[in-house]
């Protein structure tokens, strides 16, 4: 088998996932949060593909394609929401959206 060992892929996937998660946690703009979620999904996709290659089966790759499809539809919904918020002149800051407070 060519290329680096599967460990490196998993480490890269973990790094991508943590970067995305930190982005979700610390950024305020919904647009950036959506972007960070995409980075997290890509991290997990990378892990799926790496393991699929490691064990020599295609299931993980098929699963990664399914994740991409779901990520695409998620972006559609998320961007739609953001556009709707922009149209209504709602400030694009998640910390201001606190109507769920108990």
């Amino acid at each position, binding site marked *: 088998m060519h290329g680096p060992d599967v460990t490196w892929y998993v480490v890269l996937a973990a790094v991508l996932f943590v970067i995305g*998660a930190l982005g*979700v*946690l*610390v950024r305020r703009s919904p647009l950036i949060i959506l972007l960070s979620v995409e980075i997290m999904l890509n991290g997990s996709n990378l892990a799926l593909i790496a393991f699929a290659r490691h064990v020599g089966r295609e299931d993980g790759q098929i699963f990664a394609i399914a994740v991409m499809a779901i990520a695409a539809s998620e972006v559609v919904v998320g961007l739609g929401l953001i556009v709707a918020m922009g149209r209504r002149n709602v400030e694009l800051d*998640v*910390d201001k*959206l*606190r*109507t*769920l*407070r*108990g």
Partner: protein
Amino acid sequence: MRLIDAAAWVCLLAPLSACAAITLGGERLTRRACGVISSATTVVAFAAAVAAFARMLAEPGGRRAHTTSSWTWLQAGKYHFGLTLLTDQLSVMMMLIVAGVGSLIVAYSVGYMDGEDEERRYFAYMSLFVFSMLLLVQSGNLLLLLAGWGMVGLSSYLLIGFYQQRPEAIAAAKKAFVMNAFGDATMALALFLLIEHTGRLDFASVFSHAPRHGTLATLIALGLLGGAVAKSAQIPLHTWLPDAMEGPTPVSALIHAATMVTAGVYLIVRTHPLFENARAVEDLAAGLGAATLLMAGLIALVQVDIKRVIAYSTMSQIGYMFVGAGIGAYPSAMFHLMTHAFFKALLFLSAGIVIHALGGEQDVRRMGGLGRALPFTRAVFAVGTLALVGVPPFAGFFSKDSIIAATLTRGAFGDCLFAVCLAGAFLTGLYSLRLYLLVFGGAQSEFAAEHLHRPAGRLEAAPSMIWTVAVLAVGATVAGFLQFAEVWHPLTTWLAPVAAPLSEATNRQEAVASVASVGLGLAGMSVAYALYGGAQPRRLPRPLALLVQGFYWDQLYAAIFYRPAELAAQGLARFVEAPLIAGSIGELSRGFRLGSGELGRVQNGLVRSYVLAIASGVAVLAVVFLSTR
């Protein structure tokens, strides 16, 4: 089925059928019909008892006991308790007394309770009582006897509280029930001991298998004595009887004079082999009887309620019976039980006529001079009084004197009893004639002149009240001739196979006892005549508070039992309920309110903090799974 067994069942079940018919019939039966049904069935029971008695007379002396069992009532392991009736000399005698006096008193009630609200309920209860009392005396084993014992207590409770709108009546009913329940409990404990030791409860095998001596025998006899003392209103469980006079007068006559309160004497006579195994308890029974007869006689001297005087006199007379049963003079005790049933029922029922004539007044201070208006009542009351004092040839003379004579056969202890009995005889003469003179003697009182009313016609009361009292007066006069010292003693012979006397007084002892007790009775009567005889009663010193209060027994029990319980309840309410139970609920709710307020602040609506919680939770879970793999 043999005739005697059939008669026993008829005797037992007739009053029960009346109770059921009146209860189920409700308003379909007229009030008068209820009285008639109740009296008729009691007469049927009496007829059945007479039939059983007649049949038994024809049988040879040794084989007069018959048991009949209808079904097995209780079965537990090797214990079997049937619904068994025992018809022997003793129970047939009690059946005759209960059903005979009972039918007279129920018939009297038809006139006495006429126009009373809820007559139906009254007659249903009366029939229930007669049934329970017959069950008590006819039962063939101790368990059934205990059932009858409890049921007479129940019917007594129901009838004392018959006037349920009167708080005193309800209080008296509860008091009687509680004190009787105490006796029931000790009796049940005695039965448990017997079951444990013998495995049976039917009389014959209990008597042959029971422990002959030792602590166990004493405990069994003590338990039975507890039941007898409570039911028969002897010291120390006597305080319920005077209060029980809150019930209608015929109830006092039937339950609290003639039958139920004498059940204790019947119990001692019936189970005398168990008492003979514990002589100390027998002596205790006699001692309690002597103490009661003296104390009740003293209290009766100062009571002002006509029924209470007779109630204390009942306690005193039952004291005589306890003395008789305690020293082993069983036939004498039963004989006195029988004559007492006649003359005490007579006294109560004629007192009922007086109370009726005065529109419900029971205070003797307001009576006086009633003899002119009620000559018949005065005559029968005089018969009852003479029989109670024991003036020959009235019934009390024969029966009481045979008990007093029997005390002379028991050594030094017997001599003490003899002295107490004679003192009691003096007191009996004193309080009986006092009552008679206060009610009938002297000039007519203002209250009587104003309130006295007798029904139109020749009779002083309803016909059913007059003829029943007349029959009882005849009974109180002649019943005593059934037995006279050694000369003529069919009753002792009759009872001998069941309860032979332990010792019999000689003719000389009988003569001494008779002369002494009649002399003292007459002396008491003359003192009473000197004090109360004139047209205008002499002014007397204020009666001793000790006697008016009945030797402070009620106050004593209140101090020993009621006050501590009340204090404990108040203490618990203040120091346990308020802080621990009521307080803890407040504390708990306050704690939950604070906690949920604090917890609510976690939900801050900031999505990022939720995400952080989820992420850190997942991270912790991942670490846990990895490290524990």
